[in-house]
Every structure is written in structure tokens, then in C-alpha cells.
């Protein structure tokens, strides 16, 4: 079978299929489990300065076309999280710490307090006041925060972007200027669901972020646009539920992919996606590198 080994955003991975941030990433054991299940790398739940319980429930609604969530960045704070990262690493795949903050200083404090194989800056969560997309939609802030973390850490720094803007490429270019090793696209899309019986917004936080199959075409588009404009690698995430989706994302320009919502079907999906990519490459007689960005070259 075609090897999937290679560099993704500055990490040497066994395969380019990763566990996305916030998915089964709360505990070290769960991160390890995902690694053992076949994830080339695992990204933690986003970690911040202080412990947060998250929003009241429902935190998640399964809509037919995807998931809607507003967890509210629950996390035990970086002070309690190093042990989980260490346990996670025993799974044999790199552990990427997803971190968030409300300012460059907070990002630096969290990153400084954690030892991980790479950092992913959550500048894109759409449902936590003062964090995520609220900062991440301003190119200047993205650049400044990226630069601050890059200066602090010697491991790869990825910047996770929000699609809730007119121009995601401008954000990607800011991350690039700030020194990011890679960008990750996309986080969830601002959305809402209302209970038709009662009129109540279903999420405890009323509004939240859409993920899953519904957003895949949007993610593919963002990855395509970012790959066309940036010189750093793009990691694709959004709605990947089978190997074909992963191939599509890679053709759009992704060097690696992350899988989130599809994990609700079980962890086997990780291996089934990477096996599918291998078999596809075998059938086509191609290497992974040939596939990446193919859509931009087909005219």
C-alpha cells in the first residue's frame, strides 16, 4: 500500500488523518485511544487560562446535515492539562495542543505552560464571547497573536481559521506573516436551530457552530482559496466523513486533514479514511504529494 508518511505542517506523521480539536480531546486516555485507532496526530480540546465549565446544555444538536454545537470551550485550564498531553503521547502520534486566549499575552501564557508537539491557535471558535472568532476575524490580531506564540515556542504553530468572514485568505496571509507553520481551515460556521414545538433555541447558548457534512463544500472552498494564495501548508477540516471526502480536501490543497463530527460514528473512521486514501493512491499510481492541490492544476 502507498505510504502516507510525510511532513504535515512541520510534523512528521505516519498518516495525514488527524483528530480535530474539541473532539474526544478532553482526556489523555481518549487522545491516546484516537492515536491507537489510527490518527496520524491528535489535537486536544482547546485549552485556556482558567478552568471553564462551558455553556449550559444542550451543548450539541445532531441535525440531519451535521452537528450544531456550543460547548463554550470547557477546559480544566493549562495548569491541569500537561498530564493529559503526556498520557496522550503514549499513543505514539504527535499531540497538538489547541489553545485559546483573549489576547497575545494569554496565548503566550497558555503555550508557555504546556509542552506539546505542536500548537494550534484557536482563533475561530464562533460561540465564546471574547475568544476565538471574535478575535480571529481581525487580520491584525491574528498576525500579532501568531507572532507572539511563534516567538515563545520552538515547535510548529498552526493557526485555525474561521470561515465566518468575507475573506478567509486575508486571515491566512496574516497567520503566514506572523510566522505560522501552517493554517487549519475551517472551524464551525455560525448557526442556530430552534425547537419547532416550543420556539426555544435548542442550544443552551442559543447560537453555535455548524460542523459535519453540511460544511464540507465550504471547507473545500476555503482550503482551495488558501492553498492558492499561501505558501505555508493548509490543513483541511470540515465535514470529512469518508476517504473520498479526505481525497477531495487534499485535492483542494490540504497537506493533511482533521476529522471531527464523523467520530460520532466511532473511532474506526480514522483508520478507514487513511486506508481509503492509500488504496486510492495505489489504484491511481500516485503519491500523496501528487494529490495535494490537484484541483488547482486541473484546467
Amino acid at each position, binding site marked *: 500500500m502507498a505510504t502516507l508518511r510525510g511532513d504535515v505542517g512541520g510534523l512528521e506523521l505516519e498518516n495525514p488523518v488527524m483528530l480535530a480539536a474539541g473532539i474526544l480531546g*478532553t482526556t489523555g486516555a481518549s487522545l491516546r485511544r484516537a492515536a491507537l485507532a489510527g490518527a496520524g496526530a491528535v489535537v486536544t480540546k482547546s485549552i485556556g487560562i482558567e*478552568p471553564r465549565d*462551558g455553556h*449550559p446544555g444542550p451543548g*450539541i*444538536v445532531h441535525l440531519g446535515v451535521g452537528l450544531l454545537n456550543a460547548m463554550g470551550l470547557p477546559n480544566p485550564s493549562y495548569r*491541569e492539562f500537561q498530564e493529559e498531553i503526556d*498520557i496522550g503521547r503514549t499513543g505514539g502520534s504527535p499531540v497538538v495542543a489547541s489553545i485559546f486566549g483573549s489576547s497575545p499575552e494569554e496565548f503566550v501564557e497558555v503555550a508557555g505552560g504546556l509542552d506539546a508537539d505542536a500548537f494550534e491557535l484557536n482563533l475561530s471558535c464562533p460561540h465564546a464571547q471574547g475568544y476565538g472568532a471574535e478575535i480571529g476575524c481581525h487580520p491584525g490580531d491574528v498576525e500579532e497573536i501568531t507572532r507572539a506564540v511563534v516567538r515563545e515556542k520552538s515547535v510548529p504553530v498552526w493557526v485555525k481559521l474561521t470561515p465566518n468572514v468575507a475573506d478567509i485568505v486575508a486571515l491566512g496571509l496574516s497567520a503566514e506573516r506572523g510566522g505560522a507553520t501552517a493554517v487549519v481551515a475551517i472551524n464551525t460556521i455560525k448557526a442556530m436551530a430552534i*425547537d419547532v414545538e*416550543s420556539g426555544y433555541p435548542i442550544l443552551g447558548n442559543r447560537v453555535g457552530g455548524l460542523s459535519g457534512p453540511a460544511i464540507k463544500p465550504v471547507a473545500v472552498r476555503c482550503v482551495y482559496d488558501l492553498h492558492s494564495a499561501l505558501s505555508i501548508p493548509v490543513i483541511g477540516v470540515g465535514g470529512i466523513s469518508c476517504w473520498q471526502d479526505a481525497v477531495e480536501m487534499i485535492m483542494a490543497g490540504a497537506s493533511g486533514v482533521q476529522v471531527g463530527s464523523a467520530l460520532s460514528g466511532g473511532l474506526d473512521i480514522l483508520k478507514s479514511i487513511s486506508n481509503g486514501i492509500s488504496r486510492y493512491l495505489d489504484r491511481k499510481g500516485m503519491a500523496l504529494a501528487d494529490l495535494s492541490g490537484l484541483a488547482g492544476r486541473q484546467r
Partner: protein
Amino acid sequence: MRPSPVRIVEIIEETSTVKTIRFDSARLDPLPGQYMMVWIRGVDEIPMSFSGPSEMTVAAVGEATRALFRLRPGDGLGLRGPYGNGFSLIGDRILLIGGGVGAAPLAFLGDVARHKGIEVTSLMGFRCSEDIIFKRRFERLGELILTTDDGSSGIPGRVSLGLERLDPDRFSQIYICGPELMMWDVIERWKDHAGKMQASVNRHFKCGIGICGSCCMDPTGIRVCQEGPVIPAVQLLEGEFGRYRRGPSGSRGPPRG
């Protein structure tokens, strides 16, 4: 799989802090041991075991459960589920071991078992006689041994005292639900029989669909909301069960009860 709207048709006050809430949806068809995510609109969403095909038995402990207590027949709720793995019925002589409101899913299991002709013995512990629930229901199933911490009814003391009256070899399978330290105590004492024990485990659930990670247990990262809540006791001997549990933020804290 949005929360399905149901209406409350009946509320039974089991004790001053426990109510059984019966709702009008007959289509859920849960297995005993499965649970639902109960959305109290405008308040919160919490996991609740089924105490019957279309009912739950709730102890008021905090904001969401107290909000449930304020509801009246005719009021609406949103339900997702049934979710998770229920108890699997094995053999023809079973023992139910419950503590407090943990009696709820066991009573449902007992009903189903009895209906299949399985012999049911129950050992139920409560803090005091006022807290006892489902006494009549368990008695109808077969032998019932009661314990109360304050001795106001049945055997005085913890549930584990009741174990002494029972021969584990008599039972084809043993089902446990209650405060974690009580379950831990039972499993430890009857460790040699762990292979035929199933426990309904309580963790902090946020999603119920196996994706958020808030319910994951060490050391394997098992998702209690999906691969549980009923878990073979042998899987609970090593790791966090009985030692710690994670709260809503993911921080570790003491196990409960």
C-alpha cells in the same frame, strides 16, 4: 435527532426529593439501562436513565433537576435517545443491587426480566426510610433486601452489609446502579464475581453522542455515553472508577457518593 418534544402526562412523588415523570411518547422503546438526554427548555440538558418505557425517576440535586421538579403535567420536554448500551440480560436468576435513585433503571430491568420469567432478587440501599423508592415494585419482582444508613428500615447500614446475606454463586448475573463509591465497594467485595457484574456508570455527559469527550474514563478512554453507561465490572477494576471523576470543565475531582 433534534430533541423530540414530549409532554408530561403524570408525575409521581416517590419521596420529597425524588419524582417519577411519565411522558407521552411511546415510540422511544428503550432497553433498561439506556438513557435519554432530557432538555428542560431554557435551562439545561441532562442525562437520565429510563425507569420505565416512557418515564424517568429524578432526584433533585441541582439547577436542572430542580427545574424538572417544577414542571407539571401538560408541560413539555425535549428528549434525545435512547442512547448507550443497556443492561444485557444473562441467565435466569439475577440480582439487582441499587443505591438511592440508582434503583430507577434497575426497577425497569427487573420488570423486563420478570416478564421473561427470570428470577429476580433485589438488594437496595437508601439513606433512611423516607428515601426508599419502588419498595412495592421490587417486592413484586421477588425477594427484596433493604438497607438504610440510619437503620430506619431494613438492615441498618450500607448496601454492602446486605451482600453478606446473599450467595453470589446463586446468580447468573448481577446488575449494579448507585453512587460510585457504593458500586466500587460492591465490586471490590465481590471481585471474584466481577465477570458477571454489570454496572451503570455515571459521568459528566455533555453530548451523549460520543464526540465531545467529557464522559471519557481512564485508563482506556472509553466513552461512557456510548460504550456505557452499562459497563462490565471487569473493565472498572483498574483506572479512575471509584477514584476520581471529571467535572464539567474536565478537571478531576473526587468520585461521588
